């Protein structure tokens, strides 16, 4: 065995040079695709953000330094979009996290029939966002919506509510659709985290006379902390970049009621053809997302600190 190790070590050394070239050859295709469709475009975008680029004036694209950023930060529409994004994240992230956690704890019960539930819980997350959005557009429709029909049948409302054409309600409507689509992912992650907790912990605590709530507070919650961090970070990023749902549900409206940063960036770039400002906006968005991720890991360390 020893000899064999030594032999193969010599073999490795001899082939080391050949092996490096060979290895690079094997990773070249994904490397090239990444360089071509991510890194290079990103450099182009950074460059674009420092130029005034209007498709209406394609010949004149002067370098203007950070003016795009300054202008973007100054306009009221940007501030509205930033506020809308924050409001949307503030509504959806806690909702998705809490519903996901609750559903995970429910799915964790070993009762007959619950296997089926664990099976179907992922379905809303698997379909195209555009499909989910269109589905909710029909559900929430002011004239034909099933939700209105249901509320009417139950006697909760007297006449149909136009969910999507009233500013505040439109935001609530998008939140409802987003929640339905996103909670399965949180539930799956929490469920995996919960199943990783050794059942002996609960047995011991129960012998000590701990009630259900104490078990949850003192065992489940602290041990789910790493999962909680992942869910919070992931769901915050997702809700800060919401776009597909808005495209089919509200188109950023009514007015600018559901215009979030991703939509505003899209509109600036593809509706008003201000490519320079669009690039600046998308970089600002990326920076904001990065800041949020760093903040989370700072506020909520994955491992509980020693006291």
């Amino acid at each position, binding site marked *: 065995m020893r000899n064999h190790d030594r032999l*193969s070590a010599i073999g490795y050394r001899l082939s080391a040079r050949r092996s*490096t070239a060979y*290895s*690079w050859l*094997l*990773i070249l295709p*994904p490397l090239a*695709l*990444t*360089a071509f*469709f*991510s*890194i290079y*475009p*990103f450099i*182009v*975008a950074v460059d*674009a953000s420092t130029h005034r680029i209007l498709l209406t004036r394609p010949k004149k694209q002067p370098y203007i330094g950070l003016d795009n950023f300054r202008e973007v930060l100054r306009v009221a529409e940007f501030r509205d979009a930033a506020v809308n994004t924050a409001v949307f994240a503030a509504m959806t992230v806690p909702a998705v996290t809490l519903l996901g956690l609750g559903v995970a704890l*429910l799915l964790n*019960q070993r*009762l007959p029939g*619950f296997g089926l539930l664990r*099976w*179907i*819980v*992922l379905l*809303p*997350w*698997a*379909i*195209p966002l*555009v*499909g989910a959005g*269109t*589905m909710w557009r*029909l*559900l929430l429709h002011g004239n*034909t919506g*099933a939700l*209105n029909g249901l509320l009417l*049948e139950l006697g909760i409302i007297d006449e149909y509510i136009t969910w999507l054409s009233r500013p505040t309600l439109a935001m609530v409507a998008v939140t409802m659709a987003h929640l*339905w689509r996103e909670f*399965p*992912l949180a539930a*799956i*992650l929490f469920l*995996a985290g919960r199943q990783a907790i050794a059942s002996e912990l609960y047995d011991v605590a129960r012998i000590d006379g701990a009630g259900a709530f104490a078990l949850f507070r003192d065992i489940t919650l602290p041990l789910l902390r790493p*999962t909680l961090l*992942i869910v919070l970070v*992931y769901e915050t990023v997702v809700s800060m970049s919401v*776009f597909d749902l808005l*495209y089919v549900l509200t*188109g950023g409206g009514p007015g600018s009621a559901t215009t979030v940063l*991703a939509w505003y960036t*899209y509109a600036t*770039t593809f509706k008003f053809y201000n490519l320079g400002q*669009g*690039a600046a906006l998308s970089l600002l*968005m*990326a920076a904001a997302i990065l800041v949020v991720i760093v903040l989370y890991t700072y506020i909520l360390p994955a491992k509980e600190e020693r006291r």
Partner: protein
Amino acid sequence: MTARRMLGRVVLYALAVALLIYILGPFLWLLSASFQTDIALFQQPPEWFPDPFLTDNYRYVFTGKVPGEQGIGAVAAFTQEAQRIPRSLANSLIVALAVLAVNLLLATVAAYTFARERFRGREVAFFFILGSRLLPPVAVAIPIYQILRQTALLDTKLGVILVHSSFTLPFSIWVLTLYFRGMPREIEEASLVDGASRLRALFSIAIPLAAPGLAAIAAFSFLFSYNEFLFALLLTQSPGSKTIPVAIAAIAQNPDASYSLIAVGVILAIIAPLILASVFRGYIARGLVTSLER
């Protein structure tokens, strides 16, 4: 069973039923709506079950045969858009399957190389590929559009396949590298000593062992590509390359669109991902957990 435990069970089952309705209700309502006429849908409250049960909407989408008596008013101004659904479905399936194949092939080889070979620049290359996913999609949209235009790949399925592949490969490589690293080296080493090449060891030994990981990335890359909207919207225009999310969005945005036909479109669009997610559910869940927990 004590009365208290009994009560606990009743509560749990009540919650389970509520969850079941919450998850499946929207799907079932859509299915019901797709077999109705618009007239029935516009009643307040609407018909919950199709009466009469109408397959005309589906027939119209596939054959172009305009619905008969009962369906009048169901076909509004967006005739062509609804009839593009089958073509878009085919486009989406072709693109997503190609992206899946690209991922299985390239990501497996690359991930295996990252996990097993020691070579100069390995770490740099790894971070180069993974780091690319931190860039927001909107930021690279315009440059990618320009690249595809210059290479005459705009409005082609190949263009979408390349872009989707470049977006999914980093994730697949990440998941599979973790997978290969977690596998014992000994068996592969043994076959190397027997004179097999690295690639040979990969295909005959490592891949069978990593099958669950491969299933996960296959499911992920298919779902990503099938569901992706922003780039598909920007990069495709003609019926020959438009994917299904783009077709659905076009119909949903049309103010004249018939609601039952929109429902048909969404139902047809979500069949493939629903089947995939049900079949691969276990792999998807495990893949998600491994990939996000690092």
